[in-house]
């Protein structure tokens, strides 16, 4: 009898604790969502006399998909290159999860948790699909040189984990059957997916996609939209993407920023942006 009472008391205690944990988790999530994942403040970049980016600011909240659109030469890729450290901005600040990353090196930015893909796909072409993903898991390889040379337990354990994680990622993007094929032997759409899988191996908090639907037809870009959605759902990740296809943007993005000649034309939801007269003039056809 007393046992029963004890058990029920313990049960209620457990549920009580669980509730508290839930509450704390909610609070934590609320706290996190207050801080934007990425914030760019008045970033400028000039190349000689050309203002590639002019006073660009953006705030991307946790879990959002943010689109960057604009005609060719609007400065979209330059913004990516400023975030990822390929260029240092001339002025302004880039803050990633509370840390100032303005002018950090590309490798440092990647280690902090910003994964990216490239407009013209950059895979490790002569390596296998699996190796491409494994290389990006470098931060999980915490062993040192002697441990690698003597194949210590730590080395074996870490290598096994990295391998499993890479296979897991390939499964998520649907390339597990091609793990041992050379990266450059994959068809174009699969190379795009592999590039995303490789970026995800960094466990990034922010994923930058540079024209993921470039060179794809309507069906393929629709498939890509689904794919990016799945990735977002699976990893709860924040995404900043450059895209030309308006249907991809309207389908995927929560917010978007429209650029023209380095200047920000409009910010808002895809629907708002589409009806903005400036945008229609500059981007969707100025002559009409």
């Amino acid at each position, binding site marked *: 009898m007393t046992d029963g009472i004890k058990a029920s008391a313990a049960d209620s205690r457990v549920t009580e604790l669980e509730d508290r944990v839930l509450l704390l988790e909610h609070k934590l999530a609320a706290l996190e969502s207050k801080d934007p994942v990425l914030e760019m403040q008045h970033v400028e970049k000039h190349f000689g006399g050309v203002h590639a980016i002019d006073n660009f600011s953006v705030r991307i909240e946790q879990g959002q998909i943010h689109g960057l659109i604009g005609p060719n030469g609007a400065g979209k890729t330059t913004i990516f290159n400023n975030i*990822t450290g*390929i260029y240092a901005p001339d002025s302004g600040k880039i803050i990633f999860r509370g840390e100032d990353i303005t002018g950090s*090196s*590309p*490798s*440092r930015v*990647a*280690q902090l948790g910003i*994964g*990216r893909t*490239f407009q013209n796909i*950059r*895979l*490790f*072409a*002569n*390596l296998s699909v699996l*190796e491409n993903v*494994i*290389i*990006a898991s*470098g*931060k999980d*390889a915490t*062993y040192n*040189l002697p441990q*690698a*040379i*003597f*194949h210590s337990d730590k*080395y074996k354990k870490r*290598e096994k984990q990295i391998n499993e994680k890479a296979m897991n990622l390939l499964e998520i993007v649907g390339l597990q059957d091609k793990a041992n094929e050379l990266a450059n032997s994959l068809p174009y759409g699969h190379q795009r997916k592999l590039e995303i899988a*490789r*970026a995800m*191996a*960094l466990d990034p908090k922010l994923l930058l996609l540079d024209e993921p639907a470039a060179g794809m037809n309507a069906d393929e870009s629709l498939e890509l939209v689904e794919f990016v959605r799945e990735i977002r759902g699976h990893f709860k990740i924040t995404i900043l993407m450059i895209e030309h296809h308006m249907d991809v943007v309207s389908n995927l993005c929560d917010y978007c920023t429209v650029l023209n000649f380095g200047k920000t034309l409009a910010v808002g939801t895809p629907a708002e942006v589409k009806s903005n007269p400036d945008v229609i003039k500059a981007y969707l056809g100025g002559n009409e």
Partner: protein
Amino acid sequence: MIEAFNNINNAFCGFLHINPYIQGVVVLLCINVIAILGMAVLTGFTRLFSFGNAGFMAIGAYCAAILIVRHSVNFLIAMVIGAALAGFIAFLLGSLTLKLKGDYFLITCLGFGECVRVLLNYFKKFSGGSAGFPGIPNYSSMLFSVLCAVLAFFVAWRFIHSKYGRNLTSIRENEVAAEAVGINAFRYKRMSFTFSAVYAGWAGALFAGYMMYVVPTNFALNKSIELITTTVIGGLGSLTGSVLGAMLVTLLPEVFRSLSNYRMLIYGFAVVLIIMFRPNGLYGYKEFSLKRLINRFKGKPKTGKEAAS
């Protein structure tokens, strides 16, 4: 200690009836294998070309020789110090030059190799000048050299098949993408350069113990070029291919002694032919594997049977 090693070696060679000529060829082969393994890591896996590795060999050789002869340091310790000094200098040189893009690194290495040779000629009191540095005890016996080469191969193999090798390979494949996945390309290039210099220094120290006498001209530009061509002939991106290349380049001149005057000419032809017909080298981007070889032999009759049925 040297005597003990040499006695074991003599007993071993006596037992197997290996004559001194063959022993010498094997020692030379081992020295080349070690130097070329270093080149393989640098050129084959990182795609950095160095025309200065003979300079690092010279540093290893002179450092070991001077320590042993003038300061009577144990030869094993002297060899380790020689290799470490070469690595240290490569680390400094790499820190200065590896941030440069394009061909500047190659040119710096070329200049560095020549500098080492000229300095060794110039500082006569320190290095014996162009007359050479004599009186080095013969510690590079066949058995010891083979041990060194096996150890060097083992370490290089494990190095390449860990995250270090993977990161170097990713820099070779696409440096921008490597940076984008968090690999500090500069740091890893410097590591690769240091690694190759340590191996070159090690090979140099063995060379000093084999020749018992070192001259700066041993480590002239020709030697650097020989190292690079061997790596290209053997195969970029393959350690076993590089060993194969070292064997070819060391053993063929021994077989065709009468043609030794045309050596560089033949190298040139060999490189051109290889670039034309096997652009990845004899064993490029693949490691030799017994399994694959056996499978190939097994696989052929199988397909034959299938075709017949």
